[in-house]
């Protein structure tokens, strides 16, 4: 069953340097129990897309299109209805837990908030739940650790506490924004294992936002590749790794250490100054005249394999 369906999503905001077109005509579907990976380089609008689902972007942001969650358009809900979705139905695990956790509140207080808010528990009962969930994410001696502050946790423990905060109310959808960013490789492996365990054992769906293909390969069922503001390729994980179609995906995979470590030409364009036509054409080895003027449509080239490129027209 479809849990989340994003249709024609556009997210633009105004800055002093001009209009930032962070998300352009994105369509995505997440099924119940599915883990969808959203991969792309830094600054391609992945995080903005995640934040727009929970409507956590600043007020000067223009969001158009539809975000249907269990059939309801989240963009049409009022603030009060939206608050009932946040943390309860859809939770977000943020990158950089040191800045994403409140430095002056204890871990226990911060994780108990969703329990008190959405399950109406008293502080004392909520704390019991916090201890249980910290045990689940393998924080040692959780009943003592709940009285500590974020800065007293190690990087890996902070990230696990962040995950615990997201999982607290057993949401139907978790938006995980670079949950392994900035962690040591060994800690990263632990966090990935933990997330794998948590998502395979439950009906929870997840949107995993990452630029780390290794992490995506471990956790995801399907992958959507994002290139400034739009999805350029969508396929299931095995198909994508075996048979990448879009020149950008090929370049992205080719730059992996195991696949030749070949750097791609050029730089990812700025979201303020996007090229006309296909966004990738200035860097594309196969670019032709029409790539410069016309934006390619998404075409299905195999079973559940979509690509936005004129090569497959």
């Amino acid at each position, binding site marked *: 069953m479809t849990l989340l369906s994003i249709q024609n999503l556009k997210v633009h905001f105004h800055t002093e340097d001009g209009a930032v077109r962070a998300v352009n005509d994105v369509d995505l579907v997440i099924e119940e129990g599915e883990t969808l990976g959203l991969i792309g380089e830094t600054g391609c609008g992945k995080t903005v897309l995640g*934040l727009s689902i929970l409507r*956590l972007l600043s007020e000067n942001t223009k969001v158009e299109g539809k975000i249907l969650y269990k059939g309801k358009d989240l963009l049409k809900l009022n603030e009060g209805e939206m608050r009932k979705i*946040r*943390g309860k139905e859809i939770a977000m695990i943020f990158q*950089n837990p040191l800045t*994403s956790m409140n*430095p002056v509140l204890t871990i226990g207080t911060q994780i108990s908030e*969703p329990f008190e808010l959405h399950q109406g528990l008293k502080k004392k009962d909520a704390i019991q739940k916090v201890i249980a969930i910290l045990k689940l994410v393998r924080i040692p001696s959780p009943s003592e650790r709940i009285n500590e502050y974020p800065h007293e946790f190690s990087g890996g423990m902070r990230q696990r506490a962040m995950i615990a*905060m997201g999982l607290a109310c057993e949401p139907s959808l978790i938006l995980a924004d670079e949950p392994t960013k900035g962690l040591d490789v060994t800690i990263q492996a632990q966090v990935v294992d933990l997330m794998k365990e948590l998502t395979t054992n439950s009906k929870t769906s997840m949107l995993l936002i990452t630029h780390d293909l290794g992490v995506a390969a471990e956790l995801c069922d399907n992958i959507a590749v994002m290139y400034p503001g739009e999805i350029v390729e969508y396929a299931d994980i095995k198909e994508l790794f075996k048979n990448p179609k879009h020149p950008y995906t090929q370049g992205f995979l080719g730059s992996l250490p195991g696949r030749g470590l070949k750097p791609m030409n050029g730089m990812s364009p700025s979201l303020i100054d996007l090229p006309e036509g296909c966004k990738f054409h200035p860097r594309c080895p196969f670019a032709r005249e029409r790539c410069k003027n016309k934006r390619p449509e998404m075409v299905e080239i195999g079973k559940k394999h979509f690509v936005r490129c004129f090569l497959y027209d």
Partner: protein
Amino acid sequence: MIKFIARRLMIAVVVMLGVSLISFSLVFFAPGNPAEVIIRAEIGEEPTLEEIEFFFQEHGLKAPFFTQCAQWLYMITHGDLGTSFRTEEPVLVEFIDRFPATLELAVAAMFIAILISIPLGILAAMKQNSVLDHGSRFVALWGVSMPNFWLGLLLILFFSVRLDLFPCFGYGGIEYLILPAITLGTGMTASLMRLMRASMLEVLRQDYIRTARAKGLMERVVIWKHGFKNALIPVVTVMGMQVGHLLAGAVIVETIFAWPGVGKFLVDGIYARDYPVIQGFILIIALFFVLSNLAVDILYTYLDPRIRYDVKKGMK
């Protein structure tokens, strides 16, 4: 914590010694002659050279700088601030008599400042660029720019003379306190309000505020539970520094409202070149500065758990 306070108190002693040395030198080298002023005030005519000579002998003002300085240091380290040239009373006694009135005024001013500036600063931050924000900016600018003595006179003119709501000067019940406290507290209110607004705006941009919103918390909870304590940290720093300024500002306000505190006593002391009074006052203001900053540092540990003064788990 106790170790930390003890260490800070020891540093405070060194600071106080430095302050007393500087205050002694400043007063010593300042022009003017206490003998002339004080004798003229006592007998009502120009003093003779013999009288001046006698005054200098009597108060030990003939000795060289270093001898006098050493004497002064010896005295203050033994809890003796000397005797006022004018009243012939020990300076410490004079201060203890007058200090409660000044403290009352300063506390009332601080109370007004906190009560107005913190809620208004937060509201202005929450409703950035609204009419309320612009209005509070205007009032703050007005409050900072207005000199104390001018504001005091305006308040007297309006509330005492025109409306006859409060007495225009003197000391007594709460009705006597209100105008001087407003006069003294306005500058502090204005600057704290702006600081609170800026600090809250900065905090609202932080990632952890977004996390709090992502949990589905009400905006009110986000602001008060997640933002307030974080935003208060810089405000508390400035508040601590303002305590000293309040005491110094009290000198002017007390003079306008004939408030019987140490401020007025000091002004009279300065006119008469009453050295022990001036030196003693500087020392006491400095002491309050040091103590209020210590209080701020202690308050920090409550506000921000990342600041720890004790050695715990091998970390500082």
